[in-house]
């Protein structure tokens, strides 16, 4: 039952007030309401109700510092101002999540929210990259989130854009004191009583990333199914998903394979992801990674791996039905579109001087390296004398320099396009690439 009444005016420490709007939800730490500030702007109000948090003076001080700090990335719904205590509780305001974003947890219960599924592999991959990027930035800043779980993220199912909430959890690495985390997402050492850290974040991150691609939980399998535990108590849970956790696709331990009835997603999605991603999960969620926090791959490594997969992702336009057929691939590639079975349409590959080779097919955006900002968009163009060929529109802010195979040089300013020809070279300002077009599939 909501603690705050709609219409209540709550004072902020900056002297302004917000008016409480509709109740949006509640979690272990508190409640979230829509709110309106003095200027009529929509906000979200996080309201702490957990007695342990409210009794902790360090938590209030930490929250005040959080409001003053700069967010490490654009995905964070960052605390903007603390409220003055009201009754025995307090909270903070942050930007209100737009309606097109769906809580990540909904993606795991499509029976309750039929809209909660990624519409394309591009969107799924973008979501994973955005999350890896956010935590990479956070960890590089010397902080940890402490409580990464499916309730902290909102995703746009069409684009994969991500928003991260509950940022009161963020502390300087190793200085957390009031958060343990959510069962099934906590690292074993945290379940056993250790303080959360960037190392424990890495394990939780791997669990979330696995669920973005696989939907089911990586440590749920036949060993955690009914029969092994009378009732799954928190103590059992700390063991089953902590010290005794076994990845359901562990390379060396088959004791916890997905249960055919309970974990069909882990069974069905696994064959559809690239080998590099499988290996990354098998390393990040291995018994070695579980037992040894220092052995866990850093969030920045996840970002690099996922950006490399983005380079390899392809779209197929042989079948004109919507949505466009896109699929993840390694550096290897099938000759036929795995979705429509037709021969792959010609695509181009940009062989970069400093980045992973980047495949471009119609409809795919170009990102340079691990940037989250698209610099170009590939499309088909009708060229006199050559028919329909692929080209790249400059959607960024820098002017490109293009050298054609003939040696002729040209520029492509923002809004202009380059028509691909085998051997042409593009200088993007920060890096250069040779165009291989068409890239042979067979």
């Amino acid at each position: 039952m909501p603690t705050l009444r709609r219409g209540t005016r709550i004072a902020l420490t900056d002297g302004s007030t917000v008016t409480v709007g509709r109740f949006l939800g509640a979690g272990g730490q508190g409640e979230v309401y829509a709110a309106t500030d003095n200027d009529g702007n929509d906000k979200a109000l996080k309201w702490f109700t957990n007695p342990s948090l409210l009794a902790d003076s360090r938590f209030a001080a930490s929250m005040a510092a959080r409001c003053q700090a700069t967010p490490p990335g654009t995905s964070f719904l960052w605390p903007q101002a603390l409220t003055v205590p009201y009754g025995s509780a307090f909270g903070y305001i942050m930007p209100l999540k737009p309606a097109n974003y769906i809580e990540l947890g909904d993606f795991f219960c499509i029976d309750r929210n039929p809209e909660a599924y990624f519409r394309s592999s591009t969107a799924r991959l973008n979501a994973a990259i955005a999350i890896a990027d956010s935590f990479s930035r956070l960890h590089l800043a010397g902080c940890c989130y402490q409580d990464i779980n499916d309730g902290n993220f909102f995703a746009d199912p069409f684009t994969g854009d991500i928003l991260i909430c509950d940022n009161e959890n963020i502390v300087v690495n190793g200085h957390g004191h009031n958060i343990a985390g959510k069962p099934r997402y906590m690292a074993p050492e945290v379940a056993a009583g250790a303080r959360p850290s960037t190392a424990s974040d890495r394990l939780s991150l791997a669990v979330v990333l696995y669920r973005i691609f696989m939907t089911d939980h990586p440590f749920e399998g036949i060993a955690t199914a009914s029969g092994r535990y009378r009732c799954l108590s928190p103590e059992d849970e700390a063991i089953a998903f902590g010290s005794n956790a076994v990845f359901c696709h562990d390379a060396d331990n088959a004791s916890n394979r997905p249960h055919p009835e309970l974990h069909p997603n882990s069974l069905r999605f696994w064959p559809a992801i690239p080998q590099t991603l499988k290996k990354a999960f098998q390393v990040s969620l291995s018994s070695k990674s579980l037992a040894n926090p220092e052995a866990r791959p850093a969030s920045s490594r996840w970002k690099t791996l996922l950006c490399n997969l983005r380079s390899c992702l392809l779209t197929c336009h042989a079948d004109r039905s919507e949505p466009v057929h896109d699929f993840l691939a390694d550096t290897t590639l099938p000759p036929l579109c795995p979705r429509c079975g037709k021969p792959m349409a010609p695509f181009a590959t940009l062989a970069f001087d400093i980045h992973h080779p980047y495949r471009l097919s119609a409809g795919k955006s170009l990102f340079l390296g691990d940037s989250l900002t698209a610099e170009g968009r590939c499309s088909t163009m009708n060229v006199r004398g050559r028919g329909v060929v692929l080209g790249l529109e400059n959607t960024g802010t820098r002017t490109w320099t293009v050298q054609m195979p003939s040696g002729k040089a040209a520029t492509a300013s923002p809004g202009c396009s380059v028509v691909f020809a085998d051997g042409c070279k593009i200088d993007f300002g920060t890096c250069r690439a040779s165009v291989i077009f068409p890239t042979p599939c067979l």
Partner: protein
Amino acid sequence: MPCLCDISHTMPLTDIRPLPCARRRMNMFYLIDTSGSMNHNGCIESVNEAMPEIIEILRDVTLGNKDYGEIFVNCIAFSNRARLLEPMPVSALDYSWSNLEAYGLTNMGEAFDLLDAQLRPEAALGATAGNLRPAVILLSDGDPDSGWESHLESLRENPWFADSYKIAIAIGAAPDKVAMRKAISEFTAIGGKGSVISVTDMGKLTEVIRTVSATVSRIASRARVRTETGTETETVDSQIHAGISAALEPLDGVDISAIAPDSPFWD
């Protein structure tokens, strides 16, 4: 540059629509005294008023849990006899409350038997995806009929009952209600984890039932938060107790204490 041509993939991710993830079940049982004395001071009306709202709360908690605990509800009403309101617990998403009437005696022993039969893998605990610890909320306003002890002894042997979160709401537990005090104390002490709430102001009963239900369901089907000590993790039982205490202690006519067989709470 790596070769782009060697292996193939079976199918793209977007062709596989995800299925909902399996959820563990958390069963909540309400043992409700419907003896004739529950007609006094509007007690049964308070129950009937509270329960539809509680079902809404349990529904919200279940939906908020996403792929985690799904709450199932059943109610055992006891007067001359005890009866299950549903043959098996029903998901909070589908449960609809039917008002209870109060009459007759207080056959708490038979209610224990029905609870015992429900707390079995072949009954309510048969979820393939597994179960979380169940919760049992006992509400009574008077001395149970004689013979309840042997029924409680049988229930004591049920390991799922020992595992459960137990909360008793004692209405008007005057000192002369010796059997009621004894039954409730022993009931909640099994497993050493229960709490007892004594309500002497009947106007608060609806709020007490609602608070207990909301706190138990929310905490028991979700996560835990570290305590201030930094190394000790609160047990779920202590979180439930703390949550209920924080909400109810300010109320006059409502008292809560961790129950122990020798607790001074009843004095």
